Each structure stands twice: as C-alpha cells, then as structure tokens.
C-alpha cells in the first residue's frame, strides 16, 4: 500500500486515540468532594416541575460548596434514562436524583449494578437498598387551596387542567374539591386531562374549554403551570399555581395561591447523608410541616377572613387533628369509597383511582 494512504489512514485514529487517552487520564485525577448527578424529564427552565428540582440542586450547591453537579435535561424515560444514569455513575457520581416518575424502573436497574451509588427518586413506589423514594404529600395543601378557591369563586365552578389521571393527581383534585366544598357547598370541580405532561397548546385549549364552561378558578397539574395561569389571567379568571413559586408573577390580578416544592434543604440533607456515609434507604413522605412543601403567599383575590380560615385548617392538619379524606366519601359515580368514621390514609394514595363526588371528570 502506498505510504500516503497508510499515513492518512492512520492519522485520524491516532489523533482520536491520543485525545481519548488524555480524556481518560484527566478524568482519573478527579476532584475531591461529592459528585451529584440529576436527570430531568424536561427543561430546567420550565417554571414548574423540573425547575423546582433544578433549584433544589442549586440550593444544595450553595449550601455545600465542595459538591460537583452533573445535570442533564430532556432525558426520555426508558433506555436513555438508564444510559444517562450509568454514564453518571461511571463518571464518579455517588448520588443520583432521578427526577421523574417514569425513571423508577431504569433507576432500580442501574442501582442494582452500582451498589455504592445512592439513588433518590421522587414519587416512586418501590425501593432498593441504595434507592430512597421521597415526596411531599400534597393533598392537604390542595385542600387548603380548595378552601381559598371556594371562597373566591363567583360562579361556583372550579377547574383543573391535569396531565394524566395518576392516583396522586386524582388525590390532589379530590382534596381540592373537598376543601372547596367545606367552605362552599355548591362548589364543583371540572377536570380535563391533556394526556401528557407538557404540551402548551393542549393546555391552553383545555384551559379555554374549562373557562368556556363557566369556570372562574383554574388550577393546574402539569409540568409547567405557566400556560394555564396565563390563560386564566387573560380571561380574567383566578388561578392556582403548582410546582414553583415563580408562577405567581404570571397572574398579578387573578392569583389565589399556589403549592410549590422547595427541595433545597432536603437535597442538602441527602448530600450530607451520602457524604457522611449515613445513607439508609427509606420512603420519605413529607407534608405541610416540612420545609420542602411551601405554600405561596395568597393573592389579593382571597379575602382576609378566608386566609385566616385556611391557616387555622393548616395548623389542624399539621397537628394531626383533622384528616383530609375523612369519611363518609362517595365517588362521582355514586359508589361509597370511605365509610363514616374511617379515613383514607395518605400513605395509600397510590390506590386512589377514583374522583370524589362533586368532581366532574373521569379517572380512566
């Protein structure tokens, strides 16, 4: 073979090889300090679910300056999530936050392969020796929002734009309606499921559809609350935010309240746990009393006496003297779901696949 051909044929691979050696050598001399990986299902700037997690990690970084973070957005569930997590583990991450419901299976698989890496999964229902699940139980907060909405509404029609009929979301809506009913017996809640966690066009259409039906308070459970809150504001309706405190600025006039996840301190605690070797697998279910569930300040639309009522109820929940899903409760098809004197436990929300009386919509 001619010399030139050999030279050209071998040049590129040699260069690549050299670069790879440098890369490997470089990565071997990695920095001290904990490496944390987090993967998001959507964009970190969505003003909602993903942003809340991202802000939590940022807060953790601020509290623990020595920590290094590998952050990836828009990772689809399934095989890609698994690959990303494996790559993080290979890059030396010792703590991985798999920040989407659908990452549970991939996380469990990677956790089995890397027993010395600790995994944290929000909203999961299965654990492993090195995988902890955590969530803030939101129904109580939704109940409080329902109370505020029930007082603010003028048409007695409340509405929710929700991604999917997942049990946790159904529980939230049920709690909302129960709270609204408690202050306003005529309040009804209509639910529209968009079928996906993020589709602004569909969310806008769904919001408008609800408003066309006379709804004047709109709540939202999708990845980003911005579209629905904006649509409500445009049509002079009230709105309730979710996921992130930032949603309030989109609805200066119609803001009622909101529920936000403020993961910062929790993530800091996780990081300390792993760094100190004090990790133990558990299922963390927080609530109103914890610092990762925050209620946004109420808007001007909620009268002062209503705010007082809500705060009183909040204390009752925290003290444990009231239950959100206290019986008797019937679902919206007339079947009795919770007997008088009993209460649906908040730890069993995974099994709640029905909507309470007063909610107009289907759970399947």
């Amino acid at each position, binding site marked *: 073979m001619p010399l030139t051909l050999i030279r050209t044929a071998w040049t590129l691979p040699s260069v690549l090889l050299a670069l790879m050696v440098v890369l490997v050598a470089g990565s071997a001399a990695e920095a001290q300090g904990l490496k944390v990986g987090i993967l998001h299902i959507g964009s970190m700037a969505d003003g909602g679910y993903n942003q809340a997690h991202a802000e939590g990690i940022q807060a953790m970084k601020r509290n623990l300056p020595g920590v290094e973070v590998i952050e*990836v957005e828009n990772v689809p569930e399934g095989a890609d999530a698994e690959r990303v997590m494996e790559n*993080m583990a290979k890059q030396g991450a010792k703590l991985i936050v798999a920040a989407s419901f659908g990452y549970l299976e991939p996380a469990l698989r990677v956790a089995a392969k890397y027993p010395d890496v600790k995994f944290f999964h929000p909203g999961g229902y299965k654990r492993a020796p090195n995988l902890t699940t955590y969530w803030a139980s939101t129904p109580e907060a939704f109940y409080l929002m329902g109370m505020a909405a029930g007082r603010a509404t003028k048409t007695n029609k409340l509405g929710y734009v929700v991604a999917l009929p997942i049990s946790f979301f159904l529980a939230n809506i049920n709690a909302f309606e129960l709270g609204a009913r408690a202050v306003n017996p005529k309040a009804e809640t209509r639910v529209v499921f968009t079928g996906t966690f993020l589709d602004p066009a569909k969310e806008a259409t769904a919001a408008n559809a609800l408003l066309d039906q006379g709804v004047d308070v709109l709540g939202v459970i999708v990845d980003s609350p911005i579209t629905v809150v904006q649509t409500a504001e445009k049509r002079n309706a009230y709105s309730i935010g979710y996921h992130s405190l930032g949603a309030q600025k989109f609805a200066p006039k119609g803001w009622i309240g909101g529920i936000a996840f403020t993961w910062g301190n929790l993530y800091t605690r996780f990081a300390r746990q792993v760094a100190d070797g004090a990790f133990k697998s558990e299922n963390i279910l927080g609530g109103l009393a914890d610092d990762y569930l925050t209620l946004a300040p109420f808007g001007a639309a909620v009268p002062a006496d209503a705010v007082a009522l809500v705060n009183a109820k909040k204390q009752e929940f925290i003290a444990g003297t009231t239950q959100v899903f206290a019986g008797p409760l019937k679902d919206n098809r007339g079947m009795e779901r919770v007997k008088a004197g009993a209460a649906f436990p908040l730890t069993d929300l995974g099994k709640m696949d029905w909507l309470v009386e007063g909610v107009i919509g289907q759970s399947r």
Partner: protein
Amino acid sequence: MTAPPESATLGIAWRARLTSIATPAGLALVMFAGVLLAFGKNPIKAYVDIFGSTLGSAYGFSETLVKMTPLVLTAVAVAIPAKIWLINVGGEGQLYIGAIFATWGALTFGHLPAWLLLPLMVALGFLGGGLWGLVAGLLRARGWVSETISTLLMNYVAILSLNYVVFGPWKDPEGVNYPQTAEFAPSAILPVLGQSRVHLGLALGLLAVGLFAFFASRTRWGLEMRAIGGNADAARRNGLPVGRYVIGLMFIGGGLAGLAGMCEVSAIQGRLRPSLSPGYGYTGFLISWMASGHPLGILGAAFLLAVVTAGGDILQMTQAIPGSVVNILMAVILFVILGRRPGER
C-alpha cells in the same frame, strides 16, 4: 453517480463506495462543527465526547449496538418494499403495532416458559407490524391510496392505539394509575449478552439483513422483484403478479418493523409505555435511503447513526447542549449525501 462497471476490481468498487459515504460524512462533521461554534460550543470537545463515549469503551460500544438494533430492522423494513419502489414511511406505526401484539402475548401468556413465550412474541411482533403494512399494501395494490400517504397516516393511528391500551384496558393495576402496562414476566424478556444490554434483537436484525441480501440477489423472487422495480408495467404484461408482490413486500417490511417494536418492548423497556420509539421508523427510512437499500450499507449507516444519536446524551452531560442537537448532525450528513448524488428517482 453511476455504479462502477462490473469488470472493475472489488477493491476499487469498495473504495468508491466508502468514499461516497466517508467524504460526505467528513463534510457533514465540519458543517456541524460550524453550527456548534455559532452557538458558542466547543466542537472538538463535542466530537471527542461523542466518539469517546460510543466507541471508546466496551460499555459505550455495547450501548451503540443496542441503539443500532431497532434501526437495522426498521431500515430493512423500508429497503425491502423499496426494491419495487414502494415507499414505506410507516416504520414507526408498524413498530408500535408489533409492540402491541407482542405485549398482548407477554401479558396473556406470561406463565409460559421463555423458550415458548419468546418465539411466540417474535411471531406476534412480526404479525402485528406485518398486518399494519399489509393494509397499506392492499390500498396501494387496489390503486386507491399511495402507500406513502397511507403509511404516514397509519403511524398516527398506531401511536394513538398504544396510548389507548396503556391508558385503558392494559393499564398496570399496581402502577398508581400511570399509563403503562404491567411489568412483563422474566420469561418474556429477550436474553442479553453478559452485563450489557445487547440483546437477541441484534441477531434478528443481522439475520434479517442476511436473508434480505440472499433473497434479493440469489433467488427467483429477487429477480422478479428487480424486474418489477425496473419496469412495473412491462413486468405485469409479462405475467408477473405485481399486486401480490406489493402486498407481500409491504407485509414483510411491516413485519420487520414490528419485530423492532417487539424487541424494544421486551428487551429494553420490559413493559409497554407511551415513550416507545424516538422516531426509529423515520430514522430507518433515512438509513435505507442513505445506503441505497444495499444490505451492507444499511449496517454501516445504522451504526453511524447509532453513534450519532447515542452521542447526544453525552453532549448534554458535558457541554450543556440539548440532546436533540444530534438531529442536526444527522440531518447535515443526509443533506451532504443528498446534495452530492444528483439524479436519484
């Protein structure tokens, strides 16, 4: 660009074919580097990351093979009907229906041992995709609808059908009402190679390519297909059953895409859920086209695109570039190839 004459030595023909892929690929890499630079990103680091992560380790290489598997199948799914100039853009839908059929098998017969269940699921996957392609083939054979349009429309029906079953009748009773089916029994999962995720599907894909090459070039059917491809009217006048080929090839092509669906759902996902395919059907079309329907070319192009798409994850992790940017690289490679081959039909 016409193929070199038969009398040319094998070496020259191979070198010509290689350059016809390598030079555009190289040009594309330069253009993509330009795009990255325009957005303030470091192209050298990006390429090192992409190739390093996909080729530089056993794990990375295995992941590339995993990504390549469905692409090979969907590409052959396009290449086979393309022998008689049928345009199958329905790989996506056929993949989904194949996955649905295979899921039915896994859920209904989960108690069967693997050596019974897996071949059953393979057959079901092939059947599902095949039937989906068959419908388009029938519509075309009867002269009613062009298969380009029908397969395209049927993609949507297929995707929505999957949504219907995972939200409704097949929803996992243990899964907090989340849209996915119950987990498959272990006997319904395709075996993997060692610790990697490379699974039997790769063997199926290679088998498909091999059979395709064999049938196309060494059997009577291959000859008849070429005759129809050359001049369908003349072939019909000479008594060749063109309609039957239309229907049959769409069935086989669809079946292979359905196999890809079965593999994804069995080996990779372990259950059926909405996020099944990130466009494998369409990518398969592009691969088949890039390789001009040539079996070995399909393997090469599938490998190349697997490297590119798998590399997207790394870019995100190391450079904060959105993962879908690799779509640009893929598109640019294609643009360059398209731009240098005038006169394709």
